[in-house]
């Protein structure tokens, strides 16, 4: 375990500039969203936004659209915006494919030729994924709460801290799930590019399958296999307290992927 920590610290040192930069950007975005919500509230724009959407679309979208076009919905946007999700997924894939990178560059010949178990390389990646994702979500949550606490009117319909925490947890769970999947793929890959590409394509396919499954019955069963099926931020915003079950499924998927990574990496030729 100690070797895993040594390697994780080393990997974090190498990537800390990028992680800190991403944290600043995401935190900045979260803070600014609180101010966007204040702006829309002061200009009574939520009602205008809703009125701009045709009636039949409002009906189809259901209560989620109403929930989104609100102060809380705009603040929460940063926890499910496609670009934020894609950025965090990209980072998780980059961190999760480090074992493949080390095989590719032959750095693993230097580390694994020592009295270091192969599982330590996988444990390193797990430590790194969990700590970096936790750090980024903490930064985002802190920025959201700071924006709400310091710079929003008292009469604003602020989302509760519990909601923000649930949204951050949901985002973290789906990102870590994909980090685990990246690790499982990387554990058998000879090149980082192969592992990254395969994981990215899998994530894209899973996202599209889930999207189809929400609106097309024949795809509904297949969408249950997608981790994105268990990422339901709008359900959280509308007050549907199903986060526990979704988090458990995502955690199980991620854990299964990590278990595969341990087994594959232990058995392969390097």
């Amino acid at each position, binding site marked *: 375990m100690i*070797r895993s920590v*040594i*390697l994780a610290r*080393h990997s974090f040192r*190498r990537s800390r500039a990028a992680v800190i930069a991403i944290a600043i950007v995401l935190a900045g975005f979260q803070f600014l969203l609180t101010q966007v919500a204040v702006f829309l509230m002061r200009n009574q724009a939520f009602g205008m936004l809703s009125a701009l959407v045709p009636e039949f679309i409002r009906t189809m979208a259901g209560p989620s659209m109403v929930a989104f076009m609100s102060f809380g919905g705009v603040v929460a946007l940063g926890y499910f915006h496609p670009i934020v999700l894609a950025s965090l997924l990209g980072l998780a894939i980059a961190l999760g494919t480090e074992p493949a990178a*080390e095989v590719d*560059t*032959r*750095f*693993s*010949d*230097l*580390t*694994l*030729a*020592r*009295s*270091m*178990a192969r599982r330590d390389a996988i444990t390193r990646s797990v430590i790194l994924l969990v700590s970096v994702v936790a750090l980024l979500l903490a930064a985002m949550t802190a920025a959201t709460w700071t924006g709400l606490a310091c710079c929003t009117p008292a009469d604003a319909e602020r989302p509760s801290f519990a909601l923000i925490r649930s949204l951050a947890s949901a985002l973290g769970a789906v990102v870590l799930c994909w980090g685990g999947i990246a690790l499982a793929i990387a554990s058998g890959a000879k090149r980082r590019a192969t592992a990254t590409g395969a994981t990215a394509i899998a994530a894209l396919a899973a996202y599209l399958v889930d999207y189809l499954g929400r609106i097309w019955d024949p795809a509904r069963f297949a969408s249950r296999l997608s981790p994105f099926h268990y990422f339901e931020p709008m359900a959280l915003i509308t007050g549907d307290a199903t986060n526990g079950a979704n988090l458990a499924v995502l955690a199980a998927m991620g854990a299964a992927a990590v278990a595969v990574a341990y087994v594959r990496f232990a*058995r392969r*030729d*390097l």
Partner: protein
Amino acid sequence: MNAPAIQLEHLGKRYGRVTALRDLSLDVSAGEVFGFLGLNGAGKTTTIRIVLDLVRPTTGRAAVFGIDCQARGLEARAAIGYLPGEPGFQGDVTGEVTLDLLAAISGGAVDRARRAALLDRLELSVADLRRPIREYSTGMKRKLGIVQAFQADPPLLVLDEPTEGLDPLMQDAFYGLIADARGRGRTVFMSSHVLPEVERVCDRIGLVRDGELVLVSTVHEIRNLSGRRVRVSFAQPVAAPAAWPGGCEVIEISPQRWDLRVHGALGPTVAMLAALPIADLEVQMPHLEEILKTHYRVGSPRDGVSQ
């Protein structure tokens, strides 16, 4: 430790349809310097990677000081310092951080004075160590690789092409490190294409060809097998003798010049020549290169001279 430093028993490795190693058995005694030779793709690196458990054998087993390299890999690797053929250093990291990281992973404390002495001997300065490795030349990377392999003073050194990229002065420095290691009872297992180097530092050599071990011998025995070249020039034409002394083989003969190969003792040949009007006499020890090149070719007979 009485067990051999390296023990390979019927080692085989297949990658799909390709057979990289076939039934390779070899013992390397503790304290010896062993040269592992062969053409590119012969199986040298595969053998080394099996010893390090980076690759798993299809058949057979490998052991280091009696410890199975696969079943008890952590213990086995604790005794090994490894220099890869192409060290995969991380370019954005400094040499110093790399050495510290690898020392920490090894679990044992590295003697700083020993590391400093190695760096000094290989002329890698403190300033060099504080630069990122992407700024290093090929030779500097090789030196860093040597330091990381030697710094913990392991009982067994496994070195893959150790002097590649080093200038002649640094090669000499490296040979000095080998001599020191041998003097401290360490075992060195090195693969090399540089036959003069092998000739200089190795006690025994093994030659692998097409995945099979075709020759294991001391350098001295190999030279004796091949015999010495004797070139004689005469002041006047001389007739060839009716019978040549034992061990003497004619390569080329002309009235005033004989080109001979002598196996074993030179005495009888010298005694025969003493009575002749010699103008010049040249005796050459065979170079390993000349001898081994015949063994490198597929189709040459196996010659396990001694194990």
